[in-house]
């Protein structure tokens, strides 16, 4: 079992003809993911790598191919429109990989999609992976840009704001023989489609998930909100890591959302909230899997 996507989930890619989108679509196909359609306005009738049909719009692509999830690689000025198009087409899951979408666009998107059945992950995220059972986890569903081979099918859920820290956690788990149910990168932007809490609730309800690693960083209060919920409601062991203990206040640390402002969003406050919720904290990033193993 898994959350959000299963190995047989049919995926379409918005922005499939761009170099970045194309490269990662190719890697997803090689991983065994069911990429069934691409969308690039004006290029309907063409095929990606001679196999994946391209459509002008998302609604038609979904109707013709049965795709239920989308990966968005559209450039930042057009990405909010691409998200709204995918939501309007009634997709179950939209994963926005694009980095650099204006905050105002995402404020509008968040308000506009409230109440819709679509779940948005990202933007500015590595995507979602539900590992397969083949060699190097081949045969899984990979939406986004994460390296597929580091995964292993199993029962640990991973949720994180950072790409490379997710890969570190996944690799540590895999090296320790612990596979993953699903790994979700929720992205480093200040207005995310889904929060830690949204994903942790899904993991808590998923019978295929036994334990959870939650990776956060400075900025905002999403980790504190997740910790408060976990304390009262989560039935599964959770380990965590927060990046940015040494980050100076008022500076944006790479991610648009990673900033301590007005004394809020510090690593100390997040770690304290997580410890108070009984979450096993990794003091350094090399110990993320270890922190989970000792409470499993």
């Amino acid at each position, binding site marked *: 079992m898994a959350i959000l996507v299963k190995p047989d989930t049919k995926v379409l890619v918005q922005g499939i003809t761009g170099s970045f989108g194309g490269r990662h679509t190719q890697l997803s196909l090689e991983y065994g993911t069911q990429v069934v359609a691409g969308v690039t306005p004006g290029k309907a009738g063409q095929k990606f790598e001679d196999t994946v049909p391209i459509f002008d719009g998302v609604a038609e692509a979904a109707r013709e191919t049965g795709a239920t999830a989308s990966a968005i690689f559209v450039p930042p000025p057009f990405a909010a429109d691409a998200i709204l198009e995918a939501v309007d087409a009634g997709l179950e899951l939209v994963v926005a990989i694009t980095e650099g979408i204006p905050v105002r666009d995402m404020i509008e998107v968040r308000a506009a999609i409230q109440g819709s059945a679509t779940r948005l992950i990202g933007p500015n995220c590595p995507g979602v992976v539900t590992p397969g059972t083949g060699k190097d986890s081949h045969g899984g569903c990979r939406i986004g*840009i994460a390296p597929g081979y580091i995964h292993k099918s199993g029962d640990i859920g991973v949720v994180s704001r950072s790409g490379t820290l997710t890969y570190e956690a996944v690799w540590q788990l895999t090296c320790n023989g612990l596979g993953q149910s699903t790994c979700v990168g929720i992205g480093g932007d200040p207005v995310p489609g889904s929060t830690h809490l949204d994903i942790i609730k899904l993991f808590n309800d998923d019978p295929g998930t036994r334990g959870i690693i939650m990776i956060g960083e400075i900025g905002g209060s999403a980790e504190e909100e997740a910790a408060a919920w976990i304390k009262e409601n989560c039935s599964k062991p959770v380990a965590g890591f927060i990046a940015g203990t040494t980050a100076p206040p008022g500076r944006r640390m790479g991610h648009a959302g990673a900033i301590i402002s007005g004394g809020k969003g510090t690593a100390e406050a997040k770690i304290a909230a997580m410890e108070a919720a009984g979450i096993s904290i990794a003091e350094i990033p090399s110990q993320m899997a270890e922190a989970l193993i000792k409470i499993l």
Partner: protein
Amino acid sequence: MNLHEYQAKQLLARHGVEVPGGQPCTTADEARAIAEDLFAKGQEMVVLKIQIHSGGRGKGVFKDGFKGGVHLCKSADDVHEKAKAMLGNTIVTKQTGEAGRQVHTLLVASGEKIVDEFYLAVLLDRETSRPLIMASREGGVDIEEVAETNPDAIVKLQVDPLLGLRPYQGRNLASALGLDGKLIHSGAKLISSVYKTWWECDASMVEINPLCIIESPDGSQKIAAVDAKISIDGNALHRHKDIAEMRDLNEEAKLEVEASKFGLNYIKLDGSVACLVNGAGLAMATMDAIKHYGGDPANFLDVGGSASTEQVTAAFRIILKDPNVKAILVNIFGGIMNCNTIAEGVVAAVKETRLTLPLVVRLEGNNVETGDSTLANSGLSLITADSMAEAAKKVVAEAAA
């Protein structure tokens, strides 16, 4: 991207916010001319304010001992003399650090008669992903201090981004600030204009502190933004060419500007252990690991997800320009990126920059075996590590040696 006060006031005025009359200038003669013009219009006082991206300008001290970056002047001669003392001079404020900031621009504005002071700001509420207006009756003071000592003095209003700020919300807020009579309407209009500035300029924050009731010589009162701070969402500058041109590179650290030219995200810190990492989260975590083992990070540096040899070389060059650096840690998780590409980039960069400082490299991920042997066969005396913990320990020891 941060703006200067005079630039923020230009944007606010463009959206209908009342601001005191005045002009920016870069020479003492210009300052005198602007001041003479203001005095000729009947102003009794003119205020002279340095334009740097820092709070606490008024209490700052210049390196030559001259005190204060904000001055009230009663004559054009006084304006000229103070402008001359401040332009080109370097000031240290509570936010600039010891190095201080050189003053290139002054704002010469009318010194208004202030009857009352408030605080007003628009920002993103990250909990709800909606715009948030914050206002307080206690203006002209540090809002974080108010939040701690007197939180009830702060009024908050969430705005539905699809509806925008409604007129009644503006009136309610004006009234909560204690405005009455005609001032309720002018206050509501001003709040609406400030919100519009935030929204239409893609601002991350608009802060007006103080927002003032000012009195004209004829006794009539109006509400005006006497000081203003705006920062703009850098990701939205493609649709604001005019605002993008307001960027002042004098206000940004030189190494950070240079790094951005190579697509590198670099932030200089005060420690002695430099690091070069792929990914923002891992870069922060690497700094934390250095600290955890007793070192102090010299920088944050994210080379991005697909670093080229050229970028890695540029990264080394930038790190080496920081005289405090005693050792360097390269920490790469090669997901899609091939570890050998990084290893080759590191070897090329070390040779090109003739690096003599100790260098610890930790590679993990895709094609790591080839990457490690490239490092081992390079003939360079670099130190390798298998885990991030080991790498951090080793680099801290090298920096301390």
